[in-house]
């Protein structure tokens, strides 16, 4: 195989400069100087590589395959002491060498440049090129996909289009995980990518061997034994193509039918009345208020939840002209905040802080001075502040900066600097001089920041296993008078910010959660003076599964309150109607529908607070029946198309029966797969029975008559030796 590899390399090495140029240009473009300070290297690099590397691999596959699939070149190359597999593997090996060099050299150059500069003017480190490299490795799957596509006997509808779809779909998944997955997902993707490449190469090799002899329908349409790789791949390809087409159609229809301006939607939810701390079920909606230039909440109606057996009227006038606090979420801490690339978060200028901070996934906050130029000036660890240039001290557990922003959004929106939270406790950064103080030392499983009444600072609720601890954030005077509610309009940010307060935390009370269901997932929480209110029913009533809440007091038994809603007063939007989208959903292969249903059911069984798919089926009769009518029409059409495609490709009765059985699961993908997998057979009228008979069979499939040799013309000169 060595001379074949040498030949392929010599023949195609001229494309390497193009690959190098494109990759180098991308590595240049992702430089933060050109992308802006909000760009993170790994994200920018993966974004760019997601475009260029599949194209490079695809183009290389096309040029490597094209010439040697022509008659003369193919005969010259294949007619020697080598096998078709040798030829294919030589192409793959040399193609991979050319491709990987053109990708690795610019990436290595970028990594070296980043290492040389360090993080002095932007959070960057050489390891950020690894996700892009792993993506580039996976993107080589487009090379064997291109050789599959270049099959000379293929039809554009069949083997040309479909081989690209599974490879592209897999790359989309890689992109989703590598874009901000950091080193962990890069490692996992690397292993999965190797498996994917091996699978793709095995498929393309099988196809290449067939191409070398261009088999007729009789050879390849008979049995899939020992050649299941390519048919399976084509089946996946047709399912992916069909599903993608349906998804695009749904997106198009939804876009056409959706309003382009904001339409206020009423929502019914639990809320605490200001002043009385009573729990209400209120209906409210966000309306645009032109007098303040912002959105404001408007209560449409509701009733007090007393626990009585009567059904609540969610539109009762009782709730009007009253003020309410809505439930907040108790959420899990995140390992990385969402504005990250898995290595750093975007440098962020928090209100009241003089520096831009970025979280380094290794567990540190990196502080950057903005003026006169961007410069790394400090490193903050969980146990203290360190000078720039080193990552020292005890690292944070999880993204303290991003979690702090997420939890204390109420404070941040009002212009206060927000504390930091990681899995070990809560910290505040003092300014001038910069210092870090740990104000709560507690293992944290979940956390929330809830409103505590008009004019009061929001309270911090921390969940440690099944215990909820409420903390009050106080200033040097021991009170939370520091908190000022500011006008919620678009001009808020211009008001003076009291950023010189030094916050600390005081434990107010600790309560125990009612059951284990609250220790996993999110739940709603609200503050009242005498109790903490928790409920799984914090979403709107449309999808609520449990209409109840709990009052948790420090030294009193748990009080459970259940309620029922008068369905006649429901304001939930009417989803149950005929839509084109539902019709289109019926075109999705039934196997995928069943899988989705099974997953939803499994989720419901393991967590009964999740929506019950069976109940949803009953709840939306029009949507469900529209879906089923569409599904039945598509299935009937698919049956007809399968019969027709199977006849035109000469499939046996057994094969046709198998494909018919697959129709409920594959839908239109079944006839598409037949077209992609099998070759067309041709028929001529049988001289004996006049029925159209296959030209690739020796006997007529209708009457058993063998082909008759052509009649002598009386001029044949054939001697004995012949």
């Amino acid at each position, binding site marked *: 195989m*060595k*001379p*074949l590899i*040498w*030949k392929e390399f*010599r*023949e195609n090495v001229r494309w390497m400069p193009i690959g190098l140029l494109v990759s180098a240009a991308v590595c240049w473009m992702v430089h933060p100087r050109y992308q802006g300070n909000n760009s993170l290297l790994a994200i920018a690099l993966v974004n760019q590589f997601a475009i260029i590397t599949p194209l490079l691999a695809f183009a290389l596959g096309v040029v490597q395959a094209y010439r040697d699939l022509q*008659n*003369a*070149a*193919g*005969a*010259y190359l*294949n*007619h*020697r*002491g*080598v*096998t078709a597999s040798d030829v294919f593997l030589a192409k793959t090996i040399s193609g991979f060498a050319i491709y990987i060099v053109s990708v690795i050299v610019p990436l290595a150059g970028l990594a070296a440049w980043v290492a040389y500069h360090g993080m002095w003017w932007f959070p960057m480190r050489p390891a950020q090129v690894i996700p892009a490299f792993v993506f580039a490795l996976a993107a080589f799957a487009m090379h064997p996909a291109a050789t599959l596509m270049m099959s000379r006997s293929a039809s554009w509808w069949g083997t040309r289009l479909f081989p690209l779809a599974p490879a592209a779909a897999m790359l989309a998944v890689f992109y989703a995980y590598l874009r901000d997955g950091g080193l962990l997902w890069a490692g996992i993707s690397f292993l999965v990518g190797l498996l994917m490449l091996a699978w793709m190469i095995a498929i393309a090799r099988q196809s290449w061997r067939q191409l*070398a*002899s*261009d*088999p*007729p329908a*009789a*050879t390849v349409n008979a049995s899939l034994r020992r050649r299941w790789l390519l048919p399976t791949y084509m089946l996946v390809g047709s399912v992916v193509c069909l599903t993608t087409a349906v998804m695009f159609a749904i997106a198009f229809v939804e876009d056409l039918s959706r309003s382009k301006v904001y339409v206020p939607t009423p929502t019914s939810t639990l809320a605490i009345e200001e002043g009385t701390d009573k729990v209400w079920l209120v209906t409210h909606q966000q309306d645009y208020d032109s007098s303040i230039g912002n959105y404001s909440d408007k209560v449409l109606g509701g009733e007090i939840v007393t626990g009585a057996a009567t059904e609540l009227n969610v539109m009762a006038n009782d709730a009007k002209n009253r003020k309410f606090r809505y439930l907040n979420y108790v959420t899990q801490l995140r390992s990385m905040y969402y504005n990250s690339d898995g290595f750093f978060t975007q440098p962020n200028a928090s209100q009241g802080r003089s520096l831009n901070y970025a979280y380094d996934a290794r567990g540190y906050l990196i502080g950057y001075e903005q003026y006169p130029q961007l410069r790394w000036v400090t490193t903050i660890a969980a146990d203290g502040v360190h000078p720039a240039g080193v990552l020292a001290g005890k690292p944070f557990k999880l993204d303290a900066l991003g979690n702090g922003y997420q939890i204390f959004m109420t404070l941040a929106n009002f212009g206060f600097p927000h504390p930091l939270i990681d899995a070990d406790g809560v910290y505040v950064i003092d300014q001038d001089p910069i210092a870090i103080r740990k104000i709560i030392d507690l293992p944290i499983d979940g956390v929330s920041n809830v409103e505590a009444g008009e004019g009061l600072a929001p309270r911090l609720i921390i969940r440690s296993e099944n215990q909820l601890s409420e903390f009050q954030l106080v200033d040097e005077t021991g009170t939370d008078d520091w908190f000022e509610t500011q006008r919620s309009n678009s001009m808020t940010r211009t008001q003076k910010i009291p950023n010189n307060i030094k916050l600390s935390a005081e434990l107010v009370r600790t309560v125990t959660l009612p059951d284990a269901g609250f220790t996993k997932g999110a739940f709603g929480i609200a503050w009242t003076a005498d109790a903490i209110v928790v409920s799984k029913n914090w979403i709107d009533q449309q999808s609520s599964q449990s209409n109840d809440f709990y009052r948790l007091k420090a030294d009193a038994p748990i009080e459970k309150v259940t309620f029922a809603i008068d369905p006649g007063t429901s304001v939930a939007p009417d989803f149950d109607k005929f839509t084109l989208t539902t019709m289109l959903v019926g075109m999705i292969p039934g196997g995928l529908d069943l899988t989705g249903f099974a997953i939803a059911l499994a989720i419901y069984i393991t967590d009964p607070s999740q929506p019950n798919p069976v109940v949803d089926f009953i709840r939306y009769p029009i949507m469900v029946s529209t879906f089923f009518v569409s599904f039945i029409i598509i299935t009937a059409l698919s049956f007809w198309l399968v019969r027709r495609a199977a006849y035109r490709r000469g499939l046996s009765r057994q094969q046709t029966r198998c494909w018919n059985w697959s129709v409920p699961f594959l839908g239109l993908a079944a006839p598409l797969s037949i077209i992609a997998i099998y070759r067309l057979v*041709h028929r001529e009228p049988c001289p004996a029975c006049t029925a159209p008979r296959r*030209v*690739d*069979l*020796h006997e007529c499939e209708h009457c058993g008559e063998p*082909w008759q*040799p*052509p009649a002598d*013309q*009386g*001029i*044949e*000169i*054939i*001697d004995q*030796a*012949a």
Partner: protein
Amino acid sequence: MSDKVAMPDAPAIRTHRLTRYFGRRAVVRDLDFAVPRGSVVGLLGLNGAGKTTAIRMLMGFLEPTRGTCEILGHDSRHLTPQTRCRIGHTVEGHFLYPWMRVRECERFSRQTHSSWDGAMFEQSVRRFGIDTAAKVSWLSRGQRAGVSLASTLAANPELLVLDDPALGLDPVSRRALNETIVEFSEGGDRTVLLSSHLLEDVERVADRVALMVDGRMLVDSTLDDFRSRVAAWVVNTDDDPIARHPIPGLVHCRSLGNRWLVTVADPTDLSREAIEGLGGGVQQVDVSFEDAVLAYLSRSRVDHSFFTGAAS
């Protein structure tokens, strides 16, 4: 038993009802054909007659739609690299990698064939006057043919399958090509299948002729046998003589102004009577190899003048 000595008496090439369709069209239909070992067979036919398709099926690059073909005793669909090394094959147009130098072509071929005769390569290259340091893209068509043929012969094959090797060659290169083929065939029990449009060349080097018309083999015999079994008459008449009188064994009837050349295969007494019954002056004429072949080839195509567009 080694691969090389398998079935020594069997024909080098044998097909049985070999058929190939492209779409709905049968390009080769029920082809029964054999090439005895040690013979040089000229495969003739018009463009589109199915010669190249038949050769591609023989070489295993195309599977038959139905029927079978064997080459050196092996099913063409499953040729091993070892069997391929026993078969020399040059394709139409003498494909070579244009970026290679002649020496690199030689090295590439040597490394991918089990046996290699370097002296044979040098000799063949010299015959075509080729500089081995030259790039293939710098070579003339004739020189490329020389390199291609040299690479094929240096592998020391038992069977040589040449697909239109003289296409576009100058007379000197053609002569060199023919000499090379003759020398090759004289060097032992070696077989040559030569597909060509150049009847002179075939007549010069081949001892058997195979003639394909519309995917069918109409002639497969020795050159002498073929010549002896075809006869022709000139008939003086203005009208097409065969329009009114069917002639047994008629191959072709061609207008020569106000005369007609009637060519017949295996003429019998019945044929002679029919021709003499055409009226006018009837005169038997000698038939050259070229005339005989052209008569067969003209059957599938009405001869038109490219100048006037009229049927001749």
